[in-house]
C-alpha cells in the first residue's frame, strides 16, 4: 500500500520531459536573443580591428582590395567579412597599387597566433606587422604586440631571405631580428608564421613591382563595396 503511494509521488515521465523541454526552450530563446543582440557589435568590433591593423601595417594606403587566390590567379573576394585565405592589396588615392597586407596563422606558445604584415613587392620590404589574435602568456608572450622594440623590428625589414629571430643583442645580419627576452618561443613562432605566410604567397603574387592582376574589371575601384576596405574615417585622417 505504502509502496504504491510512493510510486504515485514520483513525478510522471511526462512531467520530467516537459520540465526539461520548457527549460531548454526558454534557455534557447534567451541564448538566441543575446546572440542576435550582440551580433552586430561583435562583427563591427572585429571588422574595426582588422581595418585598423590593415592600414597600420601598410602605411599611405587609402583603400584595400580583398583578394583570393583561385585557379592560379588572384580574384576579387566579394564576401562581407574576412577569412584566413584572403590577401589585401593596398592602393593610394589615385588608385595606384602600393603593396599587400598578408595574413599568417598558426601555433604560438599557448594558442593560435593570427598576424598580419604589410609587404611592398617592389622593394621587397616588410612595412610592419600587427597581431590580430593571440593568447600568449600575459606579461611574457603578449610582448609580441606590446613590446614596441619587437614590433618595430618588422618595420622596413628587407625580405631577401627568411627572417630569423636571434637572442637580443646578438643580431649580426640584416635578416635577423631581436627575439623578446623571456618570450623566445612566442617570438620564434611569430617569425615562423611570417616566413610560412611569405613563402605561401610570394610565388602567387605578381612579379616584382607589378600591379596585381585579377579576374574582374576594376570598375568597382574607388566605389564603396564589400570587396574593399576603407579606412575608418578618411576625412579625419587626411585633415589632421
Amino acid at each position, binding site marked *: 500500500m505504502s509502496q504504491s503511494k510512493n510510486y504515485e509521488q514520483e*513525478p510522471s515521465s511526462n*512531467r*520530467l520531459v516537459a*520540465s*526539461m523541454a520548457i*527549460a*531548454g526552450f*526558454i*534557455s534557447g530563446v*534567451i*541564448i538566441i536573443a*543575446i*546572440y542576435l*543582440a*550582440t551580433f552586430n*557589435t*561583435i562583427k563591427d*568590433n*572585429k571588422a574595426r*580591428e582588422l581595418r585598423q591593423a590593415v592600414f597600420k601595417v601598410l602605411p599611405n594606403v587609402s583603400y584595400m582590395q580583398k583578394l583570393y587566390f583561385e585557379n592560379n590567379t588572384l580574384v576579387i573576394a566579394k564576401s562581407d567579412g574576412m577569412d584566413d585565405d584572403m590577401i589585401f592589396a593596398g592602393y593610394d588615392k589615385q588608385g595606384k597599387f602600393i603593396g599587400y597586407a598578408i595574413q599568417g596563422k598558426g601555433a604560438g606558445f599557448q*594558442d593560435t597566433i593570427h598576424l598580419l604584415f604589410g609587404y611592398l613587392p617592389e622593394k621587397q620590404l616588410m612595412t610592419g606587422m600587427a597581431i590580430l*589574435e593571440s*593568447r600568449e*602568456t*600575459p*606579461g*611574457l608572450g603578449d610582448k609580441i604586440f606590446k613590446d614596441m622594440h619587437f614590433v618595430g623590428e618588422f618595420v622596413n625589414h628587407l625580405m631577401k631571405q627568411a627572417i630569423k629571430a636571434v637572442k637580443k643583442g646578438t643580431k649580426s645580419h640584416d635578416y635577423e631580428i631581436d627575439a623578446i627576452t*623571456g618570450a623566445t618561443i612566442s617570438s620564434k613562432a611569430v617569425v615562423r608564421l611570417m616566413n610560412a605566410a611569405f613563402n605561401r604567397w610570394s610565388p602567387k603574387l605578381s612579379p616584382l613591382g607589378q600591379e596585381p592582376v585579377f579576374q574582374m574589371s576594376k570598375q568597382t575601384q574607388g566605389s564603396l563595396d564589400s570587396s574593399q576596405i576603407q579606412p575608418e574615417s578618411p576625412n579625419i585622417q587626411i585633415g589632421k
Partner: protein
Amino acid sequence: MATDASAYEEMLKGLWRENPTFVQVLGMCPMLAVTNSATNALVMGLATLFVLVGSSLLVSSFKRWIPKQVRISLYIIIIATFVTVVDYSLLALVPAIHKELGAFIPLIVANCMILGRQEAFASKHSIKYAVMDAIGMSLGFLIALLALGSVREILGSGSLFNVDLFGANFEPWVIMILPPGGFLTLGLLLLFFNWFTERRKQFLLKVAQADQSVAIVGVKDNG
C-alpha cells in the same frame, strides 16, 4: 528585524567563514588560470557574480517546479544560459579582456562552486536567502581572485591593474604569471588564511578562558 540580520549573515559567511576558495577550496580552475593579472581576476569575478546570483535567483524561485530527478541538468541549463549571456556581452563590450580570458568564460559553466551553491543552498532556501548567499559567495570568490591576481601581477609584472608600480628598473619575477606562480601563490595564501584562522581561534579561546577565570574569581569574591 531578525530575518534581515540572518539574511545578512548568509551573505557574510561567504566572505570569510565559508569562503569558497580559502575554506571550501572550490572553483580552482579559474582561480589558477585567469589570475595572472588583477584586471582579468576582476572581470572573471564579476562574471561569476552575475552567473551565480542569476542562477541562485532562478533556482530558488522555481525550486517547487524542478523535479529532483532532473534537477542537475536543469541547474546546468540555467547556469549555461547565464554564462552564454556573459560570454556574448563581454565579447561585444570589452573584446580585449574577453580575448585574454579566452576559454575560461565558457568554463564558468563547469565551476563547481556555482553548481554547488544551487544544490546545497538555493534549492532549499527562499529567494531572499538564496540571493544573499549567492552575493556573499561570489564576493568571497572575487576577493580571493583579486588577492591572487594582485599578488601575481605585482610580483610578476611589477604593476597593478596595468599601472606600473616600480619603474623601468624592476626585474619582473616572471614565474609568478606562469601557471606555477598560480599554485605557489594559492598555496601561500591558503597557508596564511589557515594560520590566521587558527590564531584567531586560539585568541578567542584565550579570551574565553580569561573570561571564565574572571567569572570564577568573581564567584569566589562573592562567596
